[in-house]
């Protein structure tokens, strides 16, 4: 993560420590101390101030980054709205961690998903390579769309997991991500007022422009991903589909559960089961068209996820249902909660979900809770 931030020649970093984000913060500080960061670091007294400083630095025209997690992103909430409202292309790494209460330190996506309506783009990463690559993409996307972008990685499964990663060449990164060229809002020779008080109709029109920017972001993310593929040989897409055509069941996953599902499904396919896999990578803007292209024809869908909107179900499941509701297909969509609180989701658990989903006559409106085998 930190390596990506350095490769992007990030000029301004403001952060506050929180487990499990701290290795990113420490690494960047280490590089700053030996003059290898190439930018300015602000060690703020809170995440709220970190985002305040990031967005104002961004509005001044520099490339700004922060990283946080859990309580930190919850405290930032107000400033997240502010960053998107100001159209400040800040990039943030959010390490998914459980929100208190009770206190815990494990992976759970509810912290970032609770920021759904703040106007930030959100990219969920499956592994370390994707996390690194997504930061590089995120700056390019954010600076093109002029909306902030969150790169989301799971506590421990990515944040503290060691695996080999291809670190791109600085020259290629510079080619993919040229020096920052975003509006400089505080020009003393052409003074203006940023973030004024507006009327009802003006407010509505600002919001409409925000929505248009999000729609445009879908194209910008695709374009950025294509260019990234050409430059670095790796692509991720808004969503990814695997063996979806003609499948008896399509599993929909996000983040690290996806890699585990790949292992489980490979085993099950060997046994003759026809199971597809769809990974949702981008959550905001929600890739409705891309999902419909993959899933309009899928009759049986199981969504597995590590988050919960209390009183409803897993958040990706709700979003997926609403994305498909205007399509022609008739779907049997079952939500499964797996890995809540950072509990282990192993291939066997995913196999159990597949079997359950295949046998289930009617989907339940609420989620099915999956727990470790007893």
């Amino acid at each position, binding site marked *: 993560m930190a390596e990506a931030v350095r490769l992007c020649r990030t000029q301004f970093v403001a952060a506050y420590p929180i487990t499990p984000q701290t290795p990113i913060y420490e690494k960047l500080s280490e590089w700053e101390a030996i003059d290898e960061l190439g930018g300015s670091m602000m060690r703020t007294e809170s995440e709220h*101030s970190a985002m305040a*400083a990031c967005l104002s630095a961004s509005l*001044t025209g520099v490339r700004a980054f922060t990283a946080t997690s859990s309580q930190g992103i919850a405290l930032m909430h107000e400033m997240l709205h502010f960053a998107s409202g100001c159209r400040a292309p800040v990039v943030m790494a959010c390490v998914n961690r459980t929100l208190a209460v009770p206190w815990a330190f494990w992976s759970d996506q509810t912290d970032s998903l609770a920021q759904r309506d703040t106007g930030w783009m959100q990219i969920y990463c499956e592994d370390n390579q994707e996390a690194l690559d997504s930061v590089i993409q995120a700056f390019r996307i954010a600076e093109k769309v002029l909306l902030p972008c969150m790169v989301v990685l799971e506590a421990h499964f990515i944040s503290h997991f060691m695996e080999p990663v291809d670190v791109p060449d600085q020259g290629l990164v510079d080619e993919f991500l040229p020096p920052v060229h975003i509006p400089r809002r505080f020009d003393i020779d052409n003074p203006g007022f940023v973030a004024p008080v507006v009327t009802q109709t003006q407010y509505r029109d600002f919001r409409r422009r925000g929505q248009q920017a999000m729609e445009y972001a879908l194209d910008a993310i695709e374009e950025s991903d294509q260019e990234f593929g050409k430059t670095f040989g790796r692509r991720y897409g808004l969503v990814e589909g695997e063996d979806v055509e003609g499948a008896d069941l399509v599993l929909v996953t996000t983040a690290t559960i996806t890699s585990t599902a790949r292992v489980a499904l490979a085993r099950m396919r060997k046994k003759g089961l026809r199971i597809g896999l769809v990974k949702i990578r981008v959550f905001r803007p929600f890739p409705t068209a891309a999902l419909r292209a993959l899933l309009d024809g899928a009759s049986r869908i199981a969504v597995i996820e590590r988050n919960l909107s209390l009183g409803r179900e897993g958040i990706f499941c709700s979003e997926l249902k609403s994305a498909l509701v205007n399509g022609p297909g008739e779907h049997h969509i079952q939500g499964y909660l797996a890995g809540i609180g950072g509990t282990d989701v192993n291939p066997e658990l995913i196999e159990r979900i597949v079997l359950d989903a295949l046998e289930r006559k009617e989907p339940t409106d609420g989620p099915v809770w999956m727990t470790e085998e007893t």
Partner: protein
Amino acid sequence: MPMEENTRPKEILRSGHAACPGCGIALGMRMVLRALGNRAVVVVVPSCIAVISGPFPNAAADVPMFHSAFEIAAPTAAGISRALALQGKEDIPVLAFAGDGGTFDIGLQSLSGAADRNEDIIYVCMDNEGYMNTGIQVSSATPQFTWTGTTPAGNTRRKKQIMEIMAAHRIPYAATASIAFPEDLTRKILKAKEMRGTRFFHILSPCITGWRIGEDMAVKVTKLSVETKVFPLYEVEDGLKYTINHQPGDLPVDRYLEVQGRYRHLTPEKTAVIQAEVDRNWQELVMRAARNPKN
């Protein structure tokens, strides 16, 4: 001396701003901004200050302004200041205006953080001793026994000593200033402009409606606040070197209190308590100033 030029130069805060007639904050902003000049960036946060700056598409001040969120005047200004430095524009000062709510209360944490890091900003607290923009509610800058909408029987707490808090951060410069002493205020802004690091101003700014005073009273009341020692004029360098800038008269606090409707309910006993508090604070200030080797 540039004094004449700086007391009567081009106005940065234009007429047509949205302050109430006779507003103490508008006067203070006008003085601060014209001393600062138009080659600066200014942050405002929710408060009367932001209202005065004008609704879209109007802007009352001839400087780039950013209406940031309530509790983050300091880190917002610091982010801009750092970014300007990255662009090689260290010479552009960044000034943040916040009210007493945004400084003494909700913004204290972020202000403390910025002061601790000695961010290169000028922070100006326009203190009207309450949440006046939302309609006169108590803040921790509201003096004891003061009437507000949320202390109908009088405030039970004493006013928070923000200057002591800021001095405790050992920032390069902290000063009180008054709209009744424009030369002193201007000199201090010019002095601060020449310094680097966190510079803090505390400016008492009467609110016509909240203080229950007439539209022609803001300057008079402020002058009384200085002469009764309720709001002495002084500066603190490096958190330790105190200098009293104006030797106040010997007026009793009553002279300051009696002209304000918000103190109409005061009994002689309560006035005596206020007088004792003012005397004690003044003695403390005199002692601190006496320890300054420069004096």
